[in-house]
């Protein structure tokens, strides 16, 4: 979706403000929101692409008004509601009510280290050959899907060069929609600053994005 999350090139947000000796979390509720989000992710009731879409799928005003962990929390609430794992009545009461549907799995404390160190691998076996190779010129397609996508607006329609072939990866556009992993070849595609930002751009700038094959056409 063309949402407020897709921020590359947007003006007006002001300077970057680094915080010296920044802690991992800035409040207790951030710790808890982080932990319940990761733990619920481990239940297997949704995948990472669905999580990302749940965070970004809101009005630009709402997205920009929320802090980072507020977005995580809003995304978690949306996923729990959509899957009927937590009801509005329960949220209002602050307690569980009535029947509880079992989830696929529950993350136990003694599994945490192993689950974190294993991660979730996105590479899949491929039935097809990669269409592009390093050095090939490609154009990012002019796509504007209403659902989840990982092709930032600032590269759409622009010419770039294949720099690396990463392998065949789970395709977020399908995976977020519950339409299966639909693995696709993934490439690092390099764009010149002037191609993206015009003649006034820094002449020594190059920007890469990781782009799945359906995002690209030969040029």
């Amino acid at each position, binding site marked *: 979706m063309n949402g407020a*999350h*897709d*921020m*590359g*090139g947007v*003006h007006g*947000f*002001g*300077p*970057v*403000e*680094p*915080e010296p000796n*920044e802690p*991992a*979390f*800035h*409040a207790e509720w951030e710790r808890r929101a*982080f*932990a*319940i989000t990761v*733990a*619920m992710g481990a239940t297997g009731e949704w995948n*990472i692409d669905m999580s990302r879409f749940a*965070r*970004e799928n809101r009005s630009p005003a709402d*997205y*920009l*008004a929320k*802090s*980072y962990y507020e977005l995580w*929390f809003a995304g*978690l*609430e949306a996923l729990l509601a959509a899957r009927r*794992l*937590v009801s509005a009545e329960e*949220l209002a009461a*602050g*307690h*569980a009510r009535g029947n509880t549907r079992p989830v696929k799995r*529950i*993350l136990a*404390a003694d*599994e*945490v280290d192993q689950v974190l*160190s*294993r*991660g979730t691998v996105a590479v899949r076996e491929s039935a097809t050959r990669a269409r592009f190779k390093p050095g090939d010129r490609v154009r990012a397609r002019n796509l504007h899907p209403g659902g989840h996508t990982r*092709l*930032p607006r*600032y590269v759409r329609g622009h010419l770039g060069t294949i720099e690396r072939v990463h392998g065949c990866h*789970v395709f*977020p556009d399908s995976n977020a929609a519950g339409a299966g992993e639909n693995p696709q070849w*993934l490439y*690092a595609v390099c764009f010149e600053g002037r191609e993206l930002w015009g003649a006034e751009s820094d002449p*020594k*700038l190059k*920007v*890469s994005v990781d782009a*799945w094959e359906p995002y690209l056409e030969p040029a």
Partner: protein
Amino acid sequence: MSSIHKAEPHEHDHAHGSELSETELRVRALETILTEKGYVDPAALDRLIETYETKVGPRNGARVVARAWSNPEYRERLRKDATGAIASMGFAGRQSEHMIAVENTPKIHNMVVCTLCSCYPWAVLGLPPVWYKSAPYRSRAVADPRGVLREFGLELPDETEIRVWDSTAEVRYLAVPMRPLGTEGFSEERLAALVTRDSMIGTGLPKSPAEAP
């Protein structure tokens, strides 16, 4: 009220903010519900928090960079198979399943961003800082990286190519800064003490030996 387009609120800012109290209450209520339903194990939640507050952080990445600086074979492995090279030091997993190391040279400076959300190599750098997740960095890193670097106090020569990596997939990038001058004969441990988090994102440089404690 803070939001993603500014720095996030600090703990002491919360005390009087009714909106944040509302968030605090809602998070607490949801955690209670999920616990009562048996969907989350409270001990697992504590373990998750403890892991990223005390165990997994940028010192992991610093050890990887220090080894690359001092061991040519390791550096070669990091170039060819960063995921494997990093895993061989015991750092692997969530948000670092597919790693690529991008090396700075006298001609090229690498810088990493996630314009669409907050993708970041957790296993080697820990959780991302607020500025990395904020709108100012996400919007400008790809269009005006030199301006962003100046806000970090870093002025690069005009002829240095700036190479920005926008982490739009599950691939995670680790910038490998150049080894500081005057560090000949340093042990890996001494070298690692020079490697800052920001130098591995590309918004900073390693410390010089004179700056090290």
